[in-house]
C-alpha cells in the first residue's frame, strides 16, 4: 500500500493498494487551509492503509506555502512509519490521470502540457506525450515558468495541447510512485520544485528620515 500526499493545488491525500486499487482519494478544494486539513485527511488514508510501504509526495510546482505543508507532513509521516518517501513531480500525477482517462475513452490527447497557476502573472507547465513501458507519462520538458500572456505561443511552438489543471489527484501521485518503484526509477529530486529563488529584496541602504 502507498499513501499519496499532494498540496500543490488544494490538499489531496490518498491510499492505494500495491496493484493500483484506490482505497481512499480525498480532496479539499480550498486552495488555502492546507495545514488545517492535512491531519484529518492523512488519518483517514491511514485507516484505509494501516501499513503503507511507501509515502508518495507531490513535489510541486505550486504556491510555496501550501506545497511545503504537504511535503513536511509526508516526510515526517514517513519518518514516523519508518518507510521511504517517493518524490513525484505534481504535474506527473496530472499527466498520468489524463493518459489513463484517454485509455478508457480511447481518446488520444497526443502531446500536451499540464498547466498550473504559478501566481505573479505566470503559469507553470510541463510537457508530456504518451505512456512509456513502465506505465509512466513520458515527460518531454520538465516543469518551467512562463509569463501568462506568452504561454499559448510557447505551447504552439512545442505543438502541445494545453491542459489546465485545477486539482492534483493524490491517488495518481501514489500510482506514479508505485510504477516508479516497480521500475526502479526516480521521478523527482528530494527538494520541492520551487522554480523560483526566494523572492527577496537584498539589504538596501537605510532610508533617510530627515
Amino acid at each position, binding site marked *: 500500500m502507498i499513501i499519496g500526499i499532494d498540496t500543490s493545488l488544494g490538499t489531496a491525500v490518498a491510499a492505494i493498494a500495491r496493484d493500483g486499487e484506490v482505497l481512499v482519494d480525498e480532496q479539499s478544494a480550498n486552495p488555502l*487551509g*492546507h*495545514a*488545517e*486539513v*492535512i*491531519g*484529518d485527511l*492523512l*488519518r483517514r488514508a*491511514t485507516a484505509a492503509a494501516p501499513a503503507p510501504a511507501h509515502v508518495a509526495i507531490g513535489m510541486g510546482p505550486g504556491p*510555496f*506555502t501550501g506545497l*511545503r*505543508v*504537504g*511535503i*513536511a*507532513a*509526508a*516526510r*515526517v*509521516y*514517513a*519518518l*514516523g*512509519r519508518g518507510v521511504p518517501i517517493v518524490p513525484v513531480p505534481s504535474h506527473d500525477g496530472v499527466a498520468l490521470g489524463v493518459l489513463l482517462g484517454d485509455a478508457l475513452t480511447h481518446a488520444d490527447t497526443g502531446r500536451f502540457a499540464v498547466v498550473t497557476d504559478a501566481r505573479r502573472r505566470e503559469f507553470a507547465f510541463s510537457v508530456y506525450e504518451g505512456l512509456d513501458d513502465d506505465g509512466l507519462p513520458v515527460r518531454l520538458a520538465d516543469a518551467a515558468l512562463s509569463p501568462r500572456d506568452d504561454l499559448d505561443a510557447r505551447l504552439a511552438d512545442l505543438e502541445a495541447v494545453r491542459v489546465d489543471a485545477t486539482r492534483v489527484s493524490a491517488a495518481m501521485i501514489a500510482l506514479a510512485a508505485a510504477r516508479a518503484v516497480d521500475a526502479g526509477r526516480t521521478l523527482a529530486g528530494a*527538494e*520541492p520544485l*520551487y522554480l523560483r529563488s*526566494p*523572492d*527577496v*529584496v*537584498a*539589504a538596501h541602504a*537605510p532610508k*533617510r*528620515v*530627515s
Partner: protein
Amino acid sequence: MNAPLVLGIETSCDETGIGIVRGRQLLSNTIASSMDEHARYGGVVPEVAARAHLEALQPSIDTALAEAGVTLADLDAVAVTSGPGLAGALMVGVGAAKGLAVALDKPLYAVNHLVGHIAADILDADAGELEYPTVALLVSGGHTSLLLVRDLTSDVELLGETMDDAAGEAFDKVARLLKLPYPGGPEIDRAAADGDPTAIRFPRGLSRASDMASHRYDFSFSGLKTAVARWVEQHEAAGQPVPVADVAASFREAVVDVLVTKALDACARHGVPRLLLGGGVIANKRLRDVALERAAAAGVAVRIPPLRLCTDNGAMIAALAAELISSGRRPSTLAFGADSTLPVTEIQVAEDADAEPPTPATVADAAAPGGAP
C-alpha cells in the same frame, strides 16, 4: 509509565527547534538556525526561513532522538507551536507535527509560542520551583511582551506588547544605520563596549505621563530608531565623524531602560516580587545586568533560564505540553492551523472535547518525580 515523553516542534521564526523532554527533564534541545542565510538581507526573510525549516526538520528530529536516546515509538505525545509567528514558517511545523502524530497515533498538543518561552524556565533543574504569580518579560527579534503569569497552563494575561518593532528588530535596524552587520544585538553590544551610555539622551518610547493611561506596559521602538537615524544623519551632514560607540551605548541604554522600567513597574503595580526573563534578546548582558541590579533594589527576584532555552527552541514547546498533560488537559484536534497572531491567553489551541484525557497512571507518575502542580 514515567512522566510524559514529549517531542516538541518549533518553527515560528528562523530557528528550527526540536526538543524532547520527559516531564520537566530536558533530554534534547536541538536547534538549526537559518540566521546566516538572512544576514545578507539584514533581517529575517519569511520565505528563506520557511524553506530552511523544511530542509532542517528531518535531520533535526534524527539528531534530537539520538541525543535523547529514545525512539519515536517511545513518545507519549507530540507538541507544536501554532502561533504567534511567521505564518509560512509556522505551517511547516504544523504540517510536520500532524504527520508525526498521525503516523505514531499519538496525541498532539498545539501550543502558544510565547507561553512556551515561560515554560523554558521549568526545564532549568537548578532553578527551583517557578512561583506564581510572576511577571514575565519576553524580548526577541519577533516579540516584546510583558505578561502576568498566574499559572503556566491555565492563566496568562497580556499586560503589554510592542506597538511596532520588536526590541531585537530595533537592534538590527540600528546596527544597519551604524553600518554594522546582522544580527544587530551582538554587534551593537560590541560597539557599545567602549561607549558612554549617557552620551546621548535618546527617547524612551511610550514612557511619558500621557502614555500611562492606555500604554503603561506597551512598548514602541520605531521612534527610537528614527531618533538614532536623525542624530546620525545630522552628524554626517555637519561633516562630523559619527561616534559609533557612544551612539550604540546610548541606544542600547534606551532600550534596556524602557524594558526594565516597565517590567519592574508591572511587578510593583501588581504586587508581584518575581520577574522572569525570556527570549533571545536576554542574551544581551547589559539587559541582564541592569535588570538584576534594579530588581534587587526593588526587592524583585529575577529568573533567567539558560540562554539555550531563552532563544526559540522546541524543548520549551515540549515542556509546555508536558505540563498540560500533567494537569490533565486533553490533546488538540487535528483541525488547527497556524495562527500568526495567536493571543497569549490561548495557551493551548483546539483542545478536543471528545478526546480521552491522559490516562490516570500517566498523570500520577508525572506528578511524582517533578512535583507537578
